[in-house]
């Protein structure tokens, strides 16, 4: 088991997959995930202007799931690049590069007798960093950034159905640290200006809904819809919503598979 933990920590996990193992305390066995998908990014950052920008692009995710003494640890990292255009007849365009890492620590709280349905609750720590190169209507460009690190409650549920498993996870940030430069990023002041934000000024939700189905003894196919929404209110309010549809695979370690 120690080897499995060390091995699994090398990679962060993407699309958590539902448990197939009857005797696993967690919904997912120790496994690695990789998935590729299409994401849609919507952003409105008043530090740039008051217009909503939208774009789609490929998104790559990797991750892992671990079972450590009846505690379910799930983590994933995802990143992508998007070219955003304005909605509602706005002007300019944006090139957005973003990355996100999530860590869920969950404790099973309920399961059916045959483990066909599971529910786990715990906490999630999330970090999301976005760099935006904005081109204004007059062709000038400026760079902006938004970094959010948060912690809050999380839950994970799964239900055996359709020859596989349906699953849902969600997390809500309760306490956050935000780096959102007041004006365009400056080479003279590259340090993040961190501010603490509570639920009153930063509200959001992240989660996913998906389905997975075993393809072979060690390989599982996954299909998931993931969404992250953020509403941050300071002098320069930010609204973001990213949606992602991914297809991927989860590889379960032979020693862990049952």
């Amino acid at each position, binding site marked *: 088991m120690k080897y499995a933990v060390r091995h699994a920590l090398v990679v962060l996990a993407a699309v958590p997959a539902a448990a197939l193992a009857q005797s696993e305390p967690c919904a997912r066995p120790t496994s690695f995930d990789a998935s590729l998908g299409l994401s849609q990014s919507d952003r409105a950052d008043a530090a740039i202007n008051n*217009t909503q920008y939208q774009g789609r692009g490929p998104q790559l995710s990797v991750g892992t799931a671990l079972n450590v003494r009846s505690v379910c640890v799930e983590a994933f990292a995802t990143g992508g690049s998007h070219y955003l255009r304005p909605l509602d007849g706005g002007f300019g365009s944006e090139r957005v590069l973003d990355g996100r890492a999530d860590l869920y620590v969950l404790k099973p709280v309920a399961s059916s007798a045959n483990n066909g349905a599971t529910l786990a609750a715990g906490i999630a720590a999330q970090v999301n960093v976005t760099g935006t190169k904005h081109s204004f*209507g*007059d062709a000038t460009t400026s760079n902006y950034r938004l970094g959010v690190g948060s912690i809050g409650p999380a839950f994970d549920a799964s239900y055996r159905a359709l020859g596989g498993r349906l699953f849902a996870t969600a997390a809500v940030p309760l306490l956050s640290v935000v780096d959102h430069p007041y*004006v365009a990023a*400056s080479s003279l002041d590259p340090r993040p200006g961190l501010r603490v934000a509570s639920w009153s000024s930063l509200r959001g939700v992240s989660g996913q809904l998906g*389905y997975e189905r075993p393809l072979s003894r060690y390989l599982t196919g996954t*299909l998931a819809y993931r969404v992250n929404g953020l509403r941050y209110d300071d002098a*320069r309010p930010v609204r973001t*919503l990213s949606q992602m549809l991914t297809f991927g695979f989860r590889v379960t370690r032979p020693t862990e598979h049952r």
Partner: protein
Amino acid sequence: MMMHRRLLLAAVTLAATACADPTLVAPPDRSYGAMFDQMWHETDLTYSMFAVKHVNWDSVGAVYRPRALAAQSDFAFARVLSDMLGSLHDRHVSLTPGRGAMPMTYVAASDLQPLDFDSTLVERAYLTRRLSATVVPHFDAGWLAPTVAYIRFANFVGDDWGAELDAALDSLQGAKQLVLDLRSNPGGNYELALDLAGRFTEQSRDFGYVRIRNGPKHDDLTDPIVETLRPTGKRKFTGTIYLLTNRRVFSSAENFVLALHALPNVITVGDTTGGSSGRPVTRELANGWTYELSTWIEYNVDHQVLEDAGVAPSIVVPRSANGLAGKHDAVLDRVMKLAASGG
């Protein structure tokens, strides 16, 4: 077969959900009143030098809002907005009313005075030899005398000229004195200016401070951030440098002057620089018009504000001394005397 249909249904449902188009902010209001309020508010939140300029922005808004509401055309509306921004008396504040339109910029009374510098006169009457434009396409360089080299930066618009300046300094190796002519340089790229200035020092030196607007209150500014000139490039010139300035030196060109002014081997000659330093950012109105606002206050090493004060030269040659008949350049004449005497 039934299972496959269910899977297909699940996939289609997920795909449809993923394509949802959310609305995060209200559609833009393009009425004159709304756009005026937008510009006034953004300026209130962003502009860095209300205190330096002694401007009561609330009063300015109260004066210009009725005029904006009464505007009968885009041109008249742009005029009102430009006039309001003009009350800041800041050359880095401007309005561009539409893509491709000429920026409407504040013009100070001193900007309307006749030029006291003619670059063609230097080329015609003073330069004995010029480096080829293929070697130095972005600036002029040559010789004023067998041991006196000359480099003129007309502006700092662009980036990555370092190798070009290295090549020029390589070609001017025999020089004992160097005249750096920045007169009428309106500025450009701050990073480029400091990268070029780094060719004239062998050690890092602090030359100023900036405070950047970082909050909604007018006095929300960062703590002073030190500006440092660092050595750059493969070639250096560390002999005597005469740095020529006049009232038309602005922005990053003033940063260049400020940086070199701190060096012991540099003598500034001419007139005080324009006093305009703002690090502007672009903001945008709902109709696509853009405007620029200063976001910092820059100080010299003695913590004196650069805006409207400029950098005074070590040796003053007032503009009145520079005849405009096109026959002589009083500043260069003075420098050549200094160079000849080894001063």
